[in-house]
């Protein structure tokens, strides 16, 4: 019984724990969703591996306040993100823009995967070829 009550209290207080702002959620659920998305994508520059939704730094609070005010003023997501990059540069975005200077960054995972696959295919082929024309093992016992 006590355990159930405890659980109930904990569950009831969970939303308060999620909300980092004392202002509470925005009235319009659509705006609140955009607010959460935007603050989730903006980097807190004081504590660089946190986004401003997570951070309790004063600057993160100020930036959340800006996002909130700008949403309420009817600005688009793009306008708000531009506002941030105009001041703090691309670094403030957790999702870098698709500008030409970032192409290498975006392509890097695919390129590295490609190189890895290429090396692996080569290694397997060599192994198979060796296994086919000579069945005796490598003298040193090493694979290559």
């Amino acid at each position, binding site marked *: 019984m006590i355990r159930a009550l405890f659980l109930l209290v904990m569950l009831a207080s969970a939303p308060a724990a999620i909300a980092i702002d004392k202002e509470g959620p925005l009235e319009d659920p659509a705006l609140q969703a955009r607010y959460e998305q935007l603050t989730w994508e903006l980097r807190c*520059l*004081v504590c*660089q591996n946190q986004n401003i939704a997570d951070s309790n730094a*004063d*600057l993160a609070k*100020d*930036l959340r306040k*800006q996002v909130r005010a700008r949403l309420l003023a009817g600005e688009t997501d793009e306008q708000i993100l531009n506002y941030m*990059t*105009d*001041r*703090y*540069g691309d*670094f403030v975005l957790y999702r870098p823009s698709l500008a030409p200077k970032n192409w290498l960054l975006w392509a890097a995972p695919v390129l590295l995967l490609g190189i890895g696959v290429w090396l692996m295919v080569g290694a397997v082929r060599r192994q198979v070829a060796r296994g086919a024309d000579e069945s005796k093992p490598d003298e040193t016992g090493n694979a290559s």
Partner: protein
Amino acid sequence: MLKFLLPLAVFGLMVLVFFRGLQLDPSEVPSPLIGKPAPSFELPTLRDPAQTIGSDALQGEVSLLNVWATWCVGCRQEHNTLLAIAESGEVPIFGLNYRDERNAALNWLDRLGDPYVASAYDPDGQVAIDWGVYGAPETFLIDANGIVRFKHLGPLTPLIFETKILPIIRELRTQR
């Protein structure tokens, strides 16, 4: 031959990349303001709430804008450097008092000395956001046309001032 050269080349490339990486400071975010007009603002002065100071004051002469606060340890560290720069008369320093309390800030200036021509009072940090401030102390160099030329993050030292800021100031002055 390739068997030896290729790993060596890859290794060499990695050494170069990592060596460069070691010299970069990830906490130093390049300011997008460099080469752009200083963000305009209008704030009450620290000393007299009835008076205002704004970006107009940064026009007409090469000047420094120093973002400071009494809670900021780095600001205390660089304070003597600022005093020395002010005394040398090399360049006027304007202050942007950031997220601070007026009395504490005035007290600080009275106690330690006031290197600023004037300080703007920005208790809620809204002007500081326009300047892309994220960690006091920060120092901006603004040219006579009101264009931001350089930004230094962290405490100023005489060495940094002489090697990084003074050459730009001299160059800006000879251009005119």
